[in-house]
């Protein structure tokens, strides 16, 4: 791990107990700090995050209704998309309003996706991106970092990279065994089932020993039996010191494994906190069910002007 003062996952989780449960709360040991990230698609503001910190060494879930901007936010911080609030050479926002985010103490604004991954923040995709016409093993080996054989001239001379390749293969075999894909290693990745592709993608991301792994809906399309073992994998990742940030719709899973939950709605962070308390937060209920979810629509009184605003005030 790059972090010199290595903590155990239990310590990291214990630290979270002291954190205030307000959107944008500061964490005792933040690995990812995001400021002023805004992304506009035409007139539609998809993401508008003022401040967010992610604690090192724990599992953080990013939840929110469809269209809340979770995946766009993922794309922005991993370099697959640029924020509209990015610093520009001419014009653009002033320095204190410009998008700025740092990972592991390193500023990451305007960084290409490949460099973000190299710095240790590796992501997976909502729609799996298994490389179909490569074998499962080749998929895995692609994940390994700093390969000598990937430089053009060294590629011609096998002795220069054979030893490293061998070590990578051994590591890949271990990971494949853990993810129950070992028997499939010589099959083309395109022949795997949807759930197996999810597993492969996660295993492939782990080949680079990421400091933080970002999973975009890891459970979508995975059968329940497999979900159990996936959850186990994610928890063991945390216990080995990897920070996990994941987007998920399945509340059951979120409740089960996450140490901290960040809720997004309409592009903003509306709440954060431990799973059990955040679910009962008024802002979260509003975001998921609508502010008027317990209003009786058959009530004639609602037909009057302004009546819809009333229940909201009552609750406050």
């Amino acid at each position, binding site marked *: 791990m790059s972090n010199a003062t290595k903590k155990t996952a239990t310590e990291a989780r214990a630290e979270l107990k002291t954190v205030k449960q307000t959107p944008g709360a500061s964490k005792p040991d933040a690995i990812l700090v995001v400021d002023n990230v805004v992304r506009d698609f035409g007139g539609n503001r998809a993401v508008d995050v003022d401040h967010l910190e992610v604690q090192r060494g724990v599992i953080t879930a990013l939840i929110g209704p469809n269209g809340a901007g979770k995946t766009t936010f993922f794309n922005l911080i*991993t370099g*697959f998309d640029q924020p509209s609030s990015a610093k520009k050479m001419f014009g653009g926002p002033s320095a204190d309003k410009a998008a700025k985010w740092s990972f592991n103490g390193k500023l990451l604004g305007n960084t*290409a*996706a*490949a*460099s973000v*991954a*190299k710095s240790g923040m*590796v*992501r*997976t*995709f909502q729609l799996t*991106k*298994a*490389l*179909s*016409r*490569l074998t499962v093993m*080749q*998929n895995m*080996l*692609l*994940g390994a*970092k700093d*390969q*000598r*054989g*990937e*430089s*053009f001239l*060294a*590629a*011609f001379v*096998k002795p220069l*990279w054979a030893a490293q*390749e061998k070590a990578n293969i051994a590591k890949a075999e271990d990971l494949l065994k853990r993810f129950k894909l070992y028997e499939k290693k010589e099959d*083309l990745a*395109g*022949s795997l089932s949807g759930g197996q592709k999810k597993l492969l*993608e996660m295993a*492939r*991301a782990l*080949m*680079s020993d990421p400091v933080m792994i970002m999973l975009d809906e890891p459970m979508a399309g995975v059968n329940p039996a497999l979900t159990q073992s996936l959850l186990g994998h994610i928890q063991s990742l945390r216990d080995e010191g990897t920070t996990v940030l994941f987007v998920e719709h399945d509340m059951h899973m979120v409740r089960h494994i996450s140490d901290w939950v960040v809720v997004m709605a309409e592009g903003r962070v509306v709440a954060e906190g431990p799973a059990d308390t955040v679910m009962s937060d008024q802002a979260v209920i509003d975001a998921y069910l609508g502010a008027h979810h317990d209003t009786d629509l058959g009530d004639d009184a609602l037909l009057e002007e302004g009546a819809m605003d009333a229940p909201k005030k009552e609750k406050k």
Partner: protein
Amino acid sequence: MDMWIKVLYDMSANMILPTTAAFAIAAIGLNVHFGFTGLLNMGQAGFMLIGAYGFSVATIAGLPFWAATLVTIAAGTIFALLLGIPTLKLRGDYLAIVTIAAAEIVRMIGRASVLNSVTGGSNGLPGETYRNTFSALSPFPDGKTAILWFDFDNTGVNGWFIRIVAWSLVVIFAVLVWLLMRSPWGRVIKGIREDEDAVRSLGKNVFAFKMQALIIGGVLGAIGGMFYVLPTSVQPDALGRNMTFLIWTAMLLGGAATIWGPVLGSALFFALRIFIQGTVDILIPDAILNTQQTEQFSWIMVGVALMLLVIFRPQGILGDKKELNFNV
């Protein structure tokens, strides 16, 4: 019976022509682009023409053979850089549009009358003006040699020397491509063909890898162009869009993303065309199709063959059927 033997002789002679070898080299380059990296290069003939001009103009200007070869390689590299810098960050289709346009630009500039003194305009450059530095390298004595049923000059315009050099290069380049593609570098390249974003998310600089692949394929195209014009002459119109599509046909026939596919495809391509032409010439009386028309007919059949190929056997002769089950 004699006519059939002549067809067979023509087929085999066409397979080992130096221009067939040159064609195979360009096809290997295109295979690096399309087959392995997934770059849609629709202007491989442009790379060939650039290489052909690079070599011939440099030689006519007085450079020795090796220096002119370096000029060829440099020309291919620069052309690839020029095409790649603006387009490789965009989606693949844009590269196709830009390459086909760039190849046409090279051809148009080559045949512009303003450049008559350099490129010979639309008349091109006759082979004897730049061929001698290459012929002078031949270690063979004067005279003719017969091997099997072939009887060619040792060194001449269309002799054994250029055949041996060109086909040796085909083998060398195929082996080099094989070395590249079994390495981690080749793995990244093939990953890019499947899904750029996935490879990017694993920390690889996709742009740099694509650029390297574009340059390698482009340089192979340029060298192919150089060997294409050595036994003939530089004719900008001979290396136009047609040429690009013929190379595509040969590559797809042999099998894209295989090492020997483009080579086998090139040799078969020329043999098959001669076979169609010869057979039609023998079987169909002149009153219906005369000899000139049979040649045109054979080219039409090439087009039909390309269509049948991509519909019924897109993986080509050497390709792996398994890979097609989940084609993108």
